[in-house]
């Protein structure tokens, strides 16, 4: 097809200029792409928008969907064109001209004059298609965000804290956000009273909580960490309370249970200044020495320390006693008949339940081991005390009885003194002599055979006329393991009996030490986690038994005063 294309352009001067070009091709393309014969650089026009081909009657227009053309005012996609037809394609108006000689067709291409006009009288409304156009803003919200958080989160509470305790307390009681929002976790219940008194501990801004604040309350009750001769004593007094006693943490735990607090040094104690006696400890299960017990030892009653399990320990208390006989399940003879005794008959718990009240002869032994000596006066008893007093009691007793005319088969006859008659001096001396003799006989009986010797070691001195008895004093160890805290009440659970830990029924002598060895504890108690050795036991870190600030240690305050003074000097 040979076609004449006449392009009409209106220049800046308003004069229309026509330019003709001849194209020979089967298909005349119209579109935005540069290879199109009729090129139209308009975004609305497709790269290949429409094409013209030859038909018998002239030209054939076909639009490439979705493009559409307007032919003589009618919308269509395909049309057969005749001379005089007008085709509107986007911004362009194409007219079909009379084909000159030698040409198959001719068209003119010009800008559609109607196209530049505003669309009729109804403008398209403005559309709000972006979020900003419907009112979304970043900047004001950003400013509000930083301002509000700084104001309410920091400046307001800080201002009130700076104005003093009363202002801070007022703010805390109000609905406004106060410094309470800075609490990173609840206080331990022991400190619950300080929950709304931040300044009780946080005394100075930007300064770490100091020991003085702790001592404000704890000065009168606090004991030192460890004995003064402990190798780490000096280091520990210099420590801050809060390095171990951490508050506002979850889970809340004021007592430091971490084993490392001990084992950091005690794994190799000699490397940290301890003496040769200190044995290594890593964990209650893995490595812990056998227990040591403190024993009060006759005759000078010094406390000796001895390790259980090393050899058979002997407690030298001077007591003659057997647990086995007393705990005989068939019963034991008592003034009131056969009695089956229980541990608790003698071992009565202390008020706290953690330990036991001291054993007391009158209270715990006296109901069976009566100190009576005269069957005629069974209520009459010798005192549980010095042998001299016992003798005095006996002499007094028999003198009174003999002088009042009493006689018995064992004593020399006194004769009968009529009522109201007074004895001669010689007769009186004879009666008193008889009484003394009788007292000596009874004393020998109760000291050496019947009463005292049941429990005590008794020796005899002096002459047969004036015998002197010595009773070895008895002292019982009250606390066998003073370095460990043990709560009996806490262990009175389940099927546990005294016998579970203390082998009393087999103990035939008083010198037996009935404290349990570590293996007994290990039946139930594990190490730090309780899962050591592939067995689940009760988690038992060091602090389960051993405590800092033990009551046996000196008070903390004098040491702390020194530390505080040193700190003040440094500052």
């Amino acid at each position, binding site marked *: 097809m040979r076609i004449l294309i006449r392009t009409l352009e209106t220049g800046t001067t308003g004069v229309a200029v026509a330019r003709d070009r001849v194209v020979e091709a089967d298909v005349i393309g119209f579109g935005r792409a540069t290879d199109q014969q009729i090129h139209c650089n308009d975004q609305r026009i497709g790269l290949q928008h429409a094409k013209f081909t030859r038909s018998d009657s002239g030209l054939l227009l076909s639009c490439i969907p979705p493009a559409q053309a307007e032919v003589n005012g009618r919308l269509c996609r395909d049309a057969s064109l005749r001379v005089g037809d007008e085709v509107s394609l986007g911004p362009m108006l194409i007219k079909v001209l009379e084909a000159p000689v030698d040409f198959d067709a001719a068209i003119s291409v010009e800008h559609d004059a*109607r196209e530049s006009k505003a669309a009729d009288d*109804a403008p*398209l409304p403005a559309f709000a298609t972006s979020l900003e156009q419907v*009112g979304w803003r970043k900047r004001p919200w950003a400013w509000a965000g930083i301002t509000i*958080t700084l104001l309410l989160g920091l400046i307001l509470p800080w201002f009130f804290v700076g104005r003093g305790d009363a202002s801070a307390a007022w703010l805390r009681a109000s609905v406004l956000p106060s410094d309470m929002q800075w609490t990173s976790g609840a206080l331990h219940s022991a400190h619950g009273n300080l929950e709304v008194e931040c300044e009780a501990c*946080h005394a100075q*801004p930007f300064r770490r909580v100091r020991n003085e604040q702790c001592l404000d309350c704890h000065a009168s009750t606090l004991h030192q960490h460890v004995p003064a001769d402990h190798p780490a004593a000096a280091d520990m007094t210099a420590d801050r309370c809060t390095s171990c006693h951490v508050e506002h943490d979850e889970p809340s735990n004021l007592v430091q249970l971490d084993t490392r607090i001990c084992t950091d040094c005690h794994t190799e104690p000699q490397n940290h200044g301890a003496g040769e006696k200190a044995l290594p400890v890593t964990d209650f299960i893995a490595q812990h020495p056998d227990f040591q017990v403190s024993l009060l030892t006759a005759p000078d009653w010094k406390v000796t320390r001895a390790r259980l399990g090393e050899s058979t320990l002997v407690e030298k208390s001077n007591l003659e006693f057997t647990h086995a006989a007393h705990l005989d399940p068939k019963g034991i003879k008592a003034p009131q008949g056969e009695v089956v005794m229980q541990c608790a008959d003698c071992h009565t718990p202390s008020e706290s339940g953690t330990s036991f009240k001291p054993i007391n002869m009158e209270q715990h032994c006296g109901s069976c081991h009566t100190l009576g000596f005269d069957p005629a006066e069974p209520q009459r008893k010798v005192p549980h005390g010095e042998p001299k007093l016992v003798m005095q009691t006996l002499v007094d007793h028999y003198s009174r009885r003999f002088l009042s005319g009493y006689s018995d088969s064992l004593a020399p006859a006194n004769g009968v003194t009529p009522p109201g008659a007074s004895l001669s001096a010689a007769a009186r001396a004879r009666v008193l002599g008889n009484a003394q003799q009788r007292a000596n006989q009874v004393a020998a009986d109760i000291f050496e055979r019947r009463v005292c010797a049941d429990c005590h070691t008794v020796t005899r001195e002096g002459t047969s006329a004036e015998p002197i008895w010595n009773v070895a004093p008895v002292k019982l160890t009250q606390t066998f393991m003073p370095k460990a805290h043990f709560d009996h009440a806490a262990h009175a659970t389940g099927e546990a009996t005294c016998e579970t830990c203390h082998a009393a029924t087999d103990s035939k002598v008083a010198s037996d030490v009935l404290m349990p060895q570590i293996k007994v504890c290990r039946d139930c108690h594990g190490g730090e986690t309780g899962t050591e050795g592939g067995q689940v036991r009760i988690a038992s870190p060091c602090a389960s038994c051993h405590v800092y600030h033990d009551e046996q240690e000196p008070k903390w305050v004098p040491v702390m005063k020194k530390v505080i003074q040193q700190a003040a000097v440094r500052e």
Partner: protein
Amino acid sequence: MHESMLSYAQRRYLKVAIGLCALSIVAYVWHDPLSPPNGGTWLGYTLGGIGAALILWLTALGVRKRSYSSSLGTLRGWTSAHIYLGLALIVVATLHTGFQFGWNLHTLCYVLMMIVIGSGIFGMVVYLRYPQLMSSNRAGAKPDVLLEEINDLDQRSLRVANEMPRRFGDVLRSNREGTRIGGSTRAILGGLDLSTINLPSAGGSSQQVANPEQAALLDWLADELARSTDGELTKRIGDLLSVIATRRNQLRRLRRDAQIRGWLEIWLYVHVPVTLALIGTLIAHVVSVFLYW
């Protein structure tokens, strides 16, 4: 752009972020302090310091974005680092807390940070998906071109209507005036069509009705077509139906375009203001813990 945003420089910042997370986790597991893990141990302070520095640096992307003449690396590199290190912040900051949370300023700081990161993740996902959807929807035509096309279609339809009874012109003008794209947050994000049109009703008056997807107009034209007995008028109504159907398609593309742009932007309206609130809270958090040391 979106692909290279993540794979920038052989995923250099992904490696950095993974390294940072791994290091933090290993340190946390190994650390085992005497007290329960918290922000106040040496590792807690370290992780907190890294976290705070990261937050400030990540925020600096907003400044870098506006500084076109900056020589501090490419914007793509910054964005890549922003995404990966922002995600790493989840691990660093969570370990800093020692998993201790409560109703306090410190946890608020953490929550705001997670909101910022969460909105950022949302933003990253839409940036990975939506630009493709947007260009396939636009098919090379920008919204202003599509609007031009609609103008063009309107002119054509009005020219056609000039040859028809007056009611056709009235309805087409009303359709043009009542055309809506977006208009509210809901309409933009939901791609809703709130267009209306005044259609002639019995008694000579007109009645405004909803015209979503040009449906009311197409129905009205179809109705007119069914009743038309005039051959010429029937052909012209057919022409109008064709134009309006095209118009409907272009409007649909514009609405979809606004919808996609809306989703591409909406997260930023959370991300940016909450970032600033986070910075305010972060300052309050850091100052307050030392104020009450």
